[in-house]
């Protein structure tokens, strides 16, 4: 049995490392709630590198405009074809922002059109149950960006499995804190990250 390694995508444009504390927080939640064997630290994997295929779940975020290189696009196409899942989170939580516009444009070139995920999608029942779909974040209505609650996530499925999950919820801000500080929360706001990992490992 190989342990799960949380991988953050490094891409040539933009600020790929804008949520440096998120991996440790997600890893903490995986270890806290599940019996999944998880590596204690995450890795950073360049999108254009063959090493991408060692990590079938990869997290990508940023604030700035995204423009993939040809090698990154080619790698991502193969990554999707082989069943890898790319989780992209808009650190701006703004559908009118530059990250959203450029990232969706790039992802559409690679994956095809993104479609909203219904609230009944298995992702929302993979571990914790989120009957109303994706959990909202405190950053969606804080005056930054479009000041909207984004009701759905979107994605692309192949063979009945998600190969791309796209979020404007700004989980990158929501989960970007030291795991020790979870004790100050009445409800752990990283629970949805467990669903993403469990979904990726079991579907």
């Amino acid at each position: 049995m190989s342990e799960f390694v949380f991988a953050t995508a490094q891409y040539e444009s933009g600020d790929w490392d804008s949520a440096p504390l998120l991996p440790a927080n997600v890893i903490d939640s995986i270890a806290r709630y599940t019996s999944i064997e998880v590596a204690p630290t995450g890795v950073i994997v360049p999108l254009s590198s063959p090493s991408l295929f060692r990590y079938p779940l990869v997290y990508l975020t940023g604030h700035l405009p995204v423009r993939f290189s040809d090698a990154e696009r080619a790698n991502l196409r193969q990554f999707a074809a082989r069943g890898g899942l790319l989780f992209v989170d808009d650190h701006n939580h703004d559908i009118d922002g530059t990250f959203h516009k450029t990232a969706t444009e790039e992802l559409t070139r690679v994956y095809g059109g993104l479609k909203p995920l219904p609230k009944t999608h298995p992702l929302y029942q993979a571990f914790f149950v989120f009957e109303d779909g994706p959990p909202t974040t405190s950053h969606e209505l804080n005056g930054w960006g479009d000041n909207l609650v984004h009701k759905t996530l979107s994605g692309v499925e192949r063979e009945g499995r998600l190969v791309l999950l796209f979020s404007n919820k700004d989980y990158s801000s929501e989960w970007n804190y030291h795991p020790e500080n979870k004790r100050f929360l009445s409800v752990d706001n990283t629970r949805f990250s467990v669903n993403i990992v469990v979904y990726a490992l079991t579907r």
Partner: protein
Amino acid sequence: MPSRADVRHAAEIALRAVLLATLVLALWRSLRQSPSASRVIAARTETLDRDTRRALHSSEVSGVDVELSAPPTAAQRDALVALRRNSISIHWRGEVPGIALEVIRRREPAGGATITVIGAGSAPLVLSDSAGLIDTVRAGAVSVDVGTLVGAVSATRLTTLASARTPKTTPRRAVLVLGQPDWEEKFVQAALGEAGWQVRARVPVAPGVVVRDDGLLPIDTARYDAVVVLDSSASDLSPAITRFVQQGGGLVVSGGALGIPALRALTPAAAGDRRPGRILLASDTVSPSDLPFRPLLVREDAATLERHVAGVALAVRRVGLGRALAVGYDESWRWRMLGGFSGLAEHRDWWSRVIAAVAPERADTSAAGADAAPRAALIDALGPPSGAASETPRVPEDRLPAILLGIVILAELAETASRRFRGVR
């Protein structure tokens, strides 16, 4: 000196005598049943139908001597067998080329079939089905994989035709994957699903929390073709799995699951010490020989299906009505993800073949038919060819009945004409 009328009267009496004698001879001949009157028909390929019919309807034929220039059809062969069972000796000679044809339907859901043809001689063999030409192959043993077959399959060389029907397909049942949440469990599910298998899974993700498909239990042959056990998380289902295999289900045991004590009685091999996979550089691609590996220690009653440089990688054995297969590779998902452009398809097809090797077959997947090997069928039915012409005395075709009939007609006409000329009725 006798008058002309006396001569004529005497001639009429003689003609009548000849007529009566001929009739008596014909009657005697028809009633006579002696061995010396039996005869052997000399038949050829072109006249075989007519000659076998004649032999069938004549009580005087004691044998048929067949000179073949092409293999007889199944109906002709059956007719000859029927004659032989009716105490008529059958001898055959001639050059009947040996061709054997077999069609085996693949057990994977994707279907398709493998045609194997064996033919001596240098002339090409033409393989075809009802839809048309499939391939032209040279002599020797050749296997051809075909995705879709329409109607019967035939192999033709000059005048020799071997044909086999297309075997039936079996509707496949689900495959149950049991494993902990990791990439191996995910990509085994993915590979089997992409190969057309209906996949169900049970994945325990936390104490008391299991990701599972609805209607997972009971594990029986009415629901599942095979169960894949990837690690020790399936220990609690060992009794059900044992019962399933005994009843005819297939079992694939891989990785840490080879150490489950309750499954050891089923598995065809024990696992040796785990060897790490090859250390990869960034641009390296992965093949099965690079994967982490547990060399299999194969039981005496098991068969080895695949070898790795470090030992046996796949072994299978029969258990009750079912089959159990052990896999020595660990983390096969790396083959799919890091195996280059072909890794995905190779990993998918490999896992599909592994399941097909243990999945029960509910219909005959191999079809040959009576004409799949014409020469072998001929020898099986009639014995080997005669070295020379039959020793049984052969006579030309019997013309005596026709001669006797001619004599009767001529004598009767002559006598009647003579009497009419005399004015006597």
